């Protein structure tokens, strides 16, 4: 069995009286692409923010490579090899591309002074690597001058800098053109090919089905389905399940008993 990179056990999160997550179990193994899907407000972003250490869970455990972690926070999450492209992209728009890519982990000498040239060339390399290049912008361009897709490219370039073991992408293809989406997919496949893992959140089930090896469906803060690609051969089957989750008594042609998957909670 592949190495278990990260695992969440019975994680809950409440915002006051709103329960965003109610006891979620989730794991990601080395070298796999996990697709996380669910309706708006299902708790997907909350889940990955807990993973990224920027939101504290109300209860539950986080395990990194089998070891339970304590005092989990943003810096530790990054140190543990988790990079996150947040849904809101988390960019500082008045700063340059370089400053955004190296935000929070500047390349600096012993006294903390920046190695500006190194950062510049690294930024250029990263942008090239993921195919987000243009004659129009350079690493010194202000992010506020970039288009939405270009900003997304900056956020992704930032996520791959560390050669992280797990890259979490929260709706990376939303608002992207077909070509740009294809670039993101190529990037995801390249990451998996290099033996690293991706947690991919998306609303386009076809996209997620296309790219992921395994699916986790969140419904109102609970895991409604965990299934391998083998069990969900077609996107249609996944969509049918999603519809069933949304309208349990409804019009869906999906018969949950016909496909006894690892259905939890």
């Amino acid at each position: 069995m592949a190495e278990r990179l990260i695992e969440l056990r019975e994680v809950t999160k409440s915002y006051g009286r709103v329960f965003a997550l109610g006891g979620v179990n989730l794991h990601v193994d080395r070298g796999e692409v996990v697709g996380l899907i669910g309706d708006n407000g299902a708790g997907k972003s909350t889940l990955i923010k807990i993973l990224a250490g920027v939101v504290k869970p109300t209860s539950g455990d986080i395990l990194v490579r089998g070891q339970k972690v304590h005092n989990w926070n943003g810096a530790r999450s990054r140190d543990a090899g988790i990079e996150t492209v947040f849904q809101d992209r988390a960019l500082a728009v008045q700063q340059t591309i370089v400053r955004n890519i190296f935000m929070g982990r500047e390349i600096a000498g012993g006294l903390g002074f920046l190695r500006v040239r190194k950062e510049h060339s690294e930024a250029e390399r990263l942008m090239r690597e993921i195919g987000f290049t243009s004659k129009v912008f350079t690493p010194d361009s202000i992010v506020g001058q970039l288009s939405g897709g270009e900003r997304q490219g900056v956020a992704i370039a930032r996520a791959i800098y560390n050669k992280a073991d797990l890259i979490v992408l929260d709706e990376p293809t939303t608002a992207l053109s077909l070509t740009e989406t294809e670039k993101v997919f190529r990037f995801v496949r390249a990451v998996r090919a290099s033996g690293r893992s991706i947690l991919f959140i998306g609303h386009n089930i076809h996209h997620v089905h296309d790219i992921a090896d395994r699916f986790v469906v969140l419904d109102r803060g609970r895991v409604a389905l965990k299934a391998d690609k083998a069990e969900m051969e077609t996107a249609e089957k996944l969509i049918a399940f999603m519809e069933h989750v949304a309208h349990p008594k409804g019009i869906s042609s999906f018969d949950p008993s016909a496909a006894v998957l690892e259905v939890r909670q």
Partner: protein
Amino acid sequence: MTATTETGAEQRHPNASPFRRFLINNRAALGTLAVFVVMMAIFVVANPRVFLAWPLYSSVLVTLPVALFLVVPLVFVVTVGEIDLSFPATMGFSAWIFALLVQAGIDPFIAIIGGVVTGVVLGAGVGAIVVYAGLSSLIATLGMNYMLRGLIMIITEGKSIALLGLRDSTAYQIFSSSLAGIPVQIFWALAFVVFSAFLYNRHRFGARVHAVGDNPDSAAQMGIDVRRIRIATFMYMGLGAAFAGVFSVMINFTWWPTTGDGYLLPALASVFVGGTPAWGGIGTVAGGAIGALIISFIQSGIISAGLTGFYLQFFNGLIIVLALLGHRWNQARYR
């Protein structure tokens, strides 16, 4: 504000030439420099007797260093998205500790350290109150300013401390004498400006100050300890205020309980005249320093020209408004 991200075609190719990039990266500071040059030209034409004579420049060189120690750290505070109105009292308080130590016969070098530590500690205190209690720094630091100043007044009963013996000390020779007719404190102040500019533009700390001021949520998501960075800028402000206080005591050989009071508005004005916008995330240390130069020249120039304080107010206000209009036109706010 309805800034647009639409910029001129020249900005779409920022790599065109190193010179052009320099212009674009430093346009706020260069704009401030232009304001300064135009202002000086007008002054010289209007009153060559005063503005072409040395005494004016000599008096600017005495007052400017103190202002620089205040304006430059304030650029950090504004960039991180906060404001500090407590620096005049911090300056007075640190200078007070310095004066007390010197009065007690302690070596001035050690007294300087005492003053500086006081400033940094006060800055940390002010910063911690603002950051941990989540207060509006505008109001909270204003309150701290009154509180600290009031404390000084209560304890000293408004009495000043004269330190005539300071003149013979080595510390005075190093920090406050004059070299070929030029007051040496300007060199110390310039060194501070240059160091701060590197800290601001080329250091991890400066990069994080920018990030936090630009988008604190993103900075936190990227693992930056936002609160620590905010408090650190208040500490840097305290450091600068302490230097300003110590230098002002060494210049005057006297500590007054009001030391620092007059700097609140000029220092604030210098930051914004210098081209640092009030919204945080960007700014310019060099511009702030030139802003301090502008304000110093207005103050000394009006007085040397024999005009009354009414003119001083008018010109101060005029320059501030004109400079802000200039910068407004010069820089777009990205969102």
